[in-house]
């Protein structure tokens, strides 16, 4: 018992000792726990007190995203406020893959109610690979109202599909004035390099041609920015604040839509160009280049086939003939050469040249032909302008020499850009010794001087240049450079400003006013005179027009060949030209007409110019505009040189 009890005592003592040991260890562990908890607390305090500012900034940077807000593009009006380019809501079908339960089924279902092209689906699938699942992807652009209505009634069947309205550029007049207005298109790589990225943040489109390109700075405006809260995946949760975009400025062109329409109608299906300028301030009243295209095709990205078809079209509808078409001026150059002759005292106005139907140079066997093979007989300056005698001008050109002729014609702006600023304008070619040496590496021949005198050979002008040179002539040596913009209206503060015309340029000083009068009289007589090459437009003309017909050879005739329009393929027939200004005593408008392969300046081009002038005459007086006659095919009475 005793020993057992002793064992029990020992055991009890052991147990007490074990408990003490354990308690010591437990307290020690507790102290360790307390210490480590303190460490955690210290770490937290470090992060949340001393690190707070730093981490708060980082958390802010995490959550805040900047979302660009593109500005509304300015509208384009004609000079009277007719809208030529505007922004309209267009509807597109958007799909948010994340919210679509069964994509294949949805696409099939949509295809049953809205026509989906194969290309739409391909583009959709391509884009889907690249985008986040909660981003909306366009499935079809430019839904028509019927599609929108059908979708609206079926909407419940398609979760994750919605119709989005956004503003897109629309050209309500279609092809009307397309070469003046130009068009916008998606911003491409090169443009991306060039543009100010902060101004264009969020913008997808940019002016590609015409006024849209020329006045891009005004039209585009300045992008705004929205600060939004976004989550880690970039999904926008809510807007925080917004810096509104600065909307683009509305632009009023100098184009008069009514006149433009008349000019487009009179040119009809001919390929060519008509340019009408206000001689008093350089306003481009009409700028026609035919054929045309629908600029609306380009806004949403033209599909490959359509674009290739436009590119490959032999009539080149995309080509702005008014600014870039370079044509031999032909006889339209003669008034300018005549004035050069008078001013340089090569010939007096009354001095006659005998035209036997050709011209020869001493010691050269070549005969430079007059368009009138049987000859005009004795021609003074007025006669030669009225009947467009080539031989008279061969003689003038020969006596003037290429250097003086080039210098004088250069005074009218030939051979350089008019300063209109219209994108893509070409300078034409005013041939000279230097030009030929630089361009061809050859020296100048006398014969080339002769044909330069009748606007052939290397001589090339654009319709714009011809109209401008005619305005310079009308103004006796000075003119405002052509301009396409007349007025701007700011959309942020409604401020309207009429832009002053471009600074008037003095091209040359007349030595003698009467010289100018004699040339103008000759131009008037070419219309009013019984033998005038443009006499067909005289009947019923209520004002005096000073004009000159021209026919530019596309196809060189051999020495003794006779031009036979019917025997020559259409595309090799002569271009028909006419330039004029009116009224002759108080010039207000100058017009240049180029009809490709039109054959006859007097028969084809001049009537077009007259109808344009008639329309302007009526518009200026507030009278009803006469209906234009349809253009006449090949009824050339006279083949002018």
């Amino acid at each position, binding site marked *: 018992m005793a020993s057992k009890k002793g064992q029990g005592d020992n055991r009890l003592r052991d147990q007490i000792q074990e408990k003490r040991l354990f308690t010591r260890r437990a307290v020690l562990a507790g102290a360790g726990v307390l210490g480590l908890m303190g460490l955690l607390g210290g770490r937290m305090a470090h992060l949340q007190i001393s690190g*707070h500012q730093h981490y708060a900034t980082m958390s802010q940077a995490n959550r805040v995203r900047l979302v660009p807000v593109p500005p509304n593009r300015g509208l384009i009006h004609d000079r009277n406020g007719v809208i030529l380019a505007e922004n309209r809501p267009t509807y597109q079908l958007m799909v948010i893959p994340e919210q679509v339960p069964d994509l294949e089924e949805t696409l099939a279902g949509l295809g049953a109610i809205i026509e989906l092209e194969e290309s739409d689906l391909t583009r959709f699938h391509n884009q889907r690979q690249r985008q986040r699942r909660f981003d909306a992807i366009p499935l079809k652009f430019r839904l028509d109202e019927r599609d929108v209505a059908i979708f609206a009634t079926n909407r419940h069947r398609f979760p994750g599909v919605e119709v989005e309205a956004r503003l897109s550029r629309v050209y309500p007049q279609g092809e009307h004035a397309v070469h003046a207005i130009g068009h916008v298109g998606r911003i491409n790589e090169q443009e991306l390099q060039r543009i100010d990225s902060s101004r264009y943040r969020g913008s997808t489109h940019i002016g590609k041609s015409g006024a849209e390109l020329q006045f891009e700075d005004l039209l585009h405006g300045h992008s705004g920015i929205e600060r939004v809260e976004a989550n880690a995946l970039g999904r926008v949760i809510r807007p925080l604040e917004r810096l509104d975009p600065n909307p683009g400025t509305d632009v009023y062109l100098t184009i008069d839509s009514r006149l433009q329409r008349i000019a487009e109608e009179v040119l009809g299906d001919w390929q060519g160009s008509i340019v009408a300028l206000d001689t008093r301030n350089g306003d481009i009243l009409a700028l026609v280049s035919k054929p045309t295209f629908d600029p609306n095709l380009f806004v949403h990205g033209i599909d490959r086939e359509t674009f290739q078809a436009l590119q490959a079209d032999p009539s080149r509808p995309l080509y702005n003939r008014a600014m870039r078409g370079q044509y031999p001026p032909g006889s339209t150059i003669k008034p300018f050469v005549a004035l050069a002759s008078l001013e340089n005292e090569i010939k007096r106005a009354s001095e006659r040249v005998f035209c036997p139907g050709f011209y020869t140079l001493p010691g050269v066997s070549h005969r430079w032909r007059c368009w009138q093979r049987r000859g005009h007989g004795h021609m003074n300056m007025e006669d030669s302008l009225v009947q467009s005698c080539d031989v008279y001008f061969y003689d003038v050109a020969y006596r003037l020499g290429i250097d003086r002729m080039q210098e004088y014609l250069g005074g009218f702006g030939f051979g350089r850009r008019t300063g209109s600023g219209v994108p893509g304008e070409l300078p034409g070619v005013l041939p000279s010794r230097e030009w030929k040496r630089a361009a061809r590496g050859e020296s100048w021949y006398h014969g080339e001087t002769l044909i330069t005198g009748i606007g052939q050979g290397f001589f090339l002008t654009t319709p714009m240049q011809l109209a401008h040179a005619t305005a310079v002539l009308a103004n006796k040596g000075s003119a405002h450079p052509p301009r396409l913009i007349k007025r701007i209206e700011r959309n942020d503060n409604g401020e309207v400003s009429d832009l002053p015309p471009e600074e008037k340029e003095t091209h040359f000083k007349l030595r003698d006013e009467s010289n100018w009068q004699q040339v103008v009289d000759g131009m008037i007589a070419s219309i009013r005179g019984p033998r005038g090459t443009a006499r067909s437009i005289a009947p019923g003309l209520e004002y005096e027009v000073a004009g000159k017909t021209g026919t530019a050879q596309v196809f060189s005739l051999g020495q003794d060949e006779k031009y036979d329009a019917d025997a020559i393929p259409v595309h090799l027939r002569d271009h028909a030209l006419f330039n004029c200004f009116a009224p002759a005593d108080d010039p207000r408008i100058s017009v240049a007409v180029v009809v490709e392969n039109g054959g006859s300046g007097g028969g084809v081009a001049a009537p077009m110019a007259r109808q344009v002038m008639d329309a302007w005459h009526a518009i200026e007086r507030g009278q009803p505009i006469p209906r234009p006659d349809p253009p006449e095919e090949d009824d050339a009475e006279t083949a002018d040189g």
Partner: protein
Amino acid sequence: MADASLIEQRMTRVQRHLHLDGQLLTAIALLSGVGLAILYSASNQDMAELQRQLVRLSVAFVGMVAIAQVPPKTLQRWTPWVFLAGLVMLVLVLLVGTYGKGAQRWLGFGPIRFQPAELMKLAIPMMVAWYLSRRPLPPSLSQVLVALVMIAVPTALIIMQPDLGTAVLVTAAGLFVVFLAGLRWRVLLGALAAILAAIPVFWMFLMHDYQKQRVLTLFDPERDPLGAGYHIIQSTIAIGSGGVYGKGWLNGTQSQLQFLPERNTDFIFAVFSEEFGLVGVVQLLVLYLFIIWRGLYIACQAQDNFSRLLAGSLALTFFVYVFVNVGMVSGLIPVVGLPLPLISYGGTSMVTLMAAFGILMSVHTHRRMWSS
């Protein structure tokens, strides 16, 4: 020491009849409540997720109550068998277990999926406590070595799954028993030296690449800001931006806007810190500290070595959970996949934790008179 009537008196009704500990129960309920609230925020107000968590809590609670009814003596009798069963299942997991998150951890019995490693969190301290309590304390060196083998074998099996977090935890649980049993200081210091020496070996031969990554990114999160470092960067941003007072419940931008990864599981503490600030953090840590203190108190009040060692180890293991999770989320220690106890979303570990609380309660409420 105290007589029966005194102990009886000091036990409340709840303790006597339900074998539950009121203080521990209150702290656990409080913590669970905070957990549900923060989970609601971390899951972007997902009621369904909250309900699932509530169901888990209930199941775990029932488990706790059930285990609390089992007297420590019975637990002690079962211990070798539980440990053996756990070992067998750990082997089975490696042979036929299913994969989840790149590791082989699950064992399926029909519809029930089960992680044997979780069982080991209890079985190892139980086994070591069982073994060491058979002889008077402190343990002899040979006993310690045997105990170490008991810890090392299952730990090795768990590392092979691989599951670093649980391995750390079970090792800690086993070693706590050895420490509390009175491991001699010179042995302890010697062992510490050996461990330090073993670290390079461990690094070069035993650690997986992803584990090494975690350690490396701890020291410099910026070396992989979008990969492994992303977690730490985003969670320190969340914590730091919370400041002293926090951004307010449901207003943490880091968590609500999903910058914070794993925000309803391992990184939920960052959500809490962001929304409740340092003030909330200190209160939460104090609550944890109270639970640990209560566990250690229960251990000290326990009447036999097995109960004592087991209860002490479980309390300290609970601390390891808290320390490792908070330390990891705040960038103090490497990212080790351990949940924040009673707050993180997830089932298995919660059941284990509550079972541990059940054991603590059982130890505390089955005390008897010395003389009887």
